[in-house]
């Protein structure tokens, strides 16, 4: 229920919230603005906010000089591929745990969650070594596999909590009517599960896109995604603020847009159903 509030109070709330919201968002806004400046304007003293000669030059330079498309493509393949693969493996697992629970289901779920808690640095060398031995170092296949594995627990958990919300009575009714397992999955569960699967897909693409431990440590030139591309700006030459901003804007824009659609799923996906 909405409480009745005075217009004055609502105005104060609004002003305070907008001020803080803009303050938190400011670094992103500043990055986007700077990406349209010239390098000289980007470091001008005092800084210019809106009134400068807007230019797209930086975007052109970044694309030309650093083969930006290759990094973008690597990000798309690795984030998308690992998530799709995870969904393909996760859906049957989550389905069976949600609808055919056994005594061990809870233990299995908890164990899967525990693999997510394993600190990456603790297994850095073994993975590095296995990657060298298997020829996976600096390949998209290798990185896709690793990101799939680190996100698989979250995928299964999210799907599990969504599937759990599908009422079991509907399934029982279908079984009574003689539906086979295949029909049950195809005609009853799938349509009801699609929204949950879509949310899981969305959140895990975001997580994989932004992953920055394995992507930095297991790639060099060939398979490096945008996280590593941006990291190459940590040892700059000459003026580079505007170009850094353009590269950053391109790297975060797709995910910011996806992210806005997945606020709710974020809570569910990252608290493992503990906060709803």
């Amino acid at each position, binding site marked *: *229920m909405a*409480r009745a509030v005075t217009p004055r*109070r*609502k105005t104060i*709330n609004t002003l305070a*919230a*907008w001020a*803080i*919201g*803009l303050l*938190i*968002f400011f*670094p*992103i806004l500043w*990055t986007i603005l700077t990406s349209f400046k010239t390098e000289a304007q980007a470091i001008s003293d*005092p800084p210019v906010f809106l009134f400068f000669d807007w230019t797209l030059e930086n975007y052109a330079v970044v694309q030309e000089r650093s083969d930006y498309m290759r990094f973008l493509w690597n990000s798309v393949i690795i984030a998308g591929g690992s998530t799709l693969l995870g969904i393909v*493996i996760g859906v*049957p*697992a989550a*389905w*069976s*745990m949600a*609808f*055919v629970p*056994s005594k061990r289901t*809870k233990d299995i779920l*908890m164990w*899967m*969650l*525990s693999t997510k*808690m394993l*600190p990456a*640095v*603790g*297994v*850095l*060398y073994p*993975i590095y*070594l*296995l990657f060298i031995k298997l020829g996976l170092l600096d390949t998209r296949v290798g990185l896709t596999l690793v990101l799939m*594995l680190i996100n*698989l627990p979250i995928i299964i958990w999210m799907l599990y909590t969504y599937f759990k919300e599908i009422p079991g009575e509907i399934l029982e009714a279908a079984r009574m009517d003689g539906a086979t*397992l295949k029909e049950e999955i195809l005609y009853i569960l799938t349509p009801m599960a699609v929204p949950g699967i879509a949310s899981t897909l969305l959140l895990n693409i*975001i997580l994989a896109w*932004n992953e920055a431990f394995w992507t930095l440590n297991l790639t060099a030139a060939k398979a490096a995604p945008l*996280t*590593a591309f941006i*990291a190459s700006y*940590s040892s700059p030459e000459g003026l580079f*603020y505007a170009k850094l901003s353009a590269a*950053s804007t391109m790297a*975060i824009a797709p995910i*910011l847009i996806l*992210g806005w659609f997945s*606020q709710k799923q974020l809570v569910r996906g990252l608290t*493992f*159903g*503990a*906060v*709803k």
Partner: protein
Amino acid sequence: MATQHSRSAARIMMAPAVVLLLGWMLVPLTMTLYFSFKKYLPLRGGDLGWVGFDNYVRFVSSSAFWPSVQTTLVIVGGVLLITIILGVLLSILLDQPMWGQGIVRILVIAPFFVMPTVSALVWKNMFMDPVNGLFAHLWEAFGAQPVEWLSDASLLSIIIIVSWQWLPFATLILLTAIQSLDSEQLEAAEMDGAPPLARFGFIILPHLSRAITIVILIQTIFLLAIFAEIFVTTGGAFGTRTLTYLIFQRVLESQNVGLGSAGGVYAIILANIVAIFLMRIVGKNLDA
């Protein structure tokens, strides 16, 4: 009830996920344990034999160990403190009636979707740079000497960057929890004349305690593992070498795999201590 048929089908459907995760957990973990008992220097002689617990002793007695533990604690503690306090205040504010609530929410959540290398480099260069950063301009505008953020206040800088990334997470979860609060309870308290602070202390905060615990636990697990933010800003210099970063340096930079693996085992134990508490809460929720 499930039939025998659907039970065996369920087992088959679960098998790929279970096998993969089991392999992902056991194979590297076994290797880390194996290496941790060896003197293993890939670039300087390779496998030089078993050394017992030597690596474990040497890892904790090296001069870099305690400073790295301290750094880790300061960063994790600082970020938790900032994100929880600001997160509680912000979530209460965002829960109030206002115009444009949806847009403000989006603005607040946005930093969480920025990849770590971007946020670290943007903060480092465009805000914290002592010559061209916005903070430097701001300091000069007030006649103050610009701060060399990432060398003179390196830990604070890292804490600011990481807090900016994680504040949205804390806020969003706490906001979700606040919205489940029964507003009639608050109204009743208001009518009974409870002042805002009392309402906050006796109704809102207790209601949030579970969500706060969860935020603390989840963030701790992620914060213990922060890497990219340090990798692209200070590279572990100026006292920003965390335990995670120290292990990374031992393993990949100096290629002392035995020593690094022993450190890795410590990191795994540390993360598990936190994880146990988190799993307990999550597990309880699963029963309900």
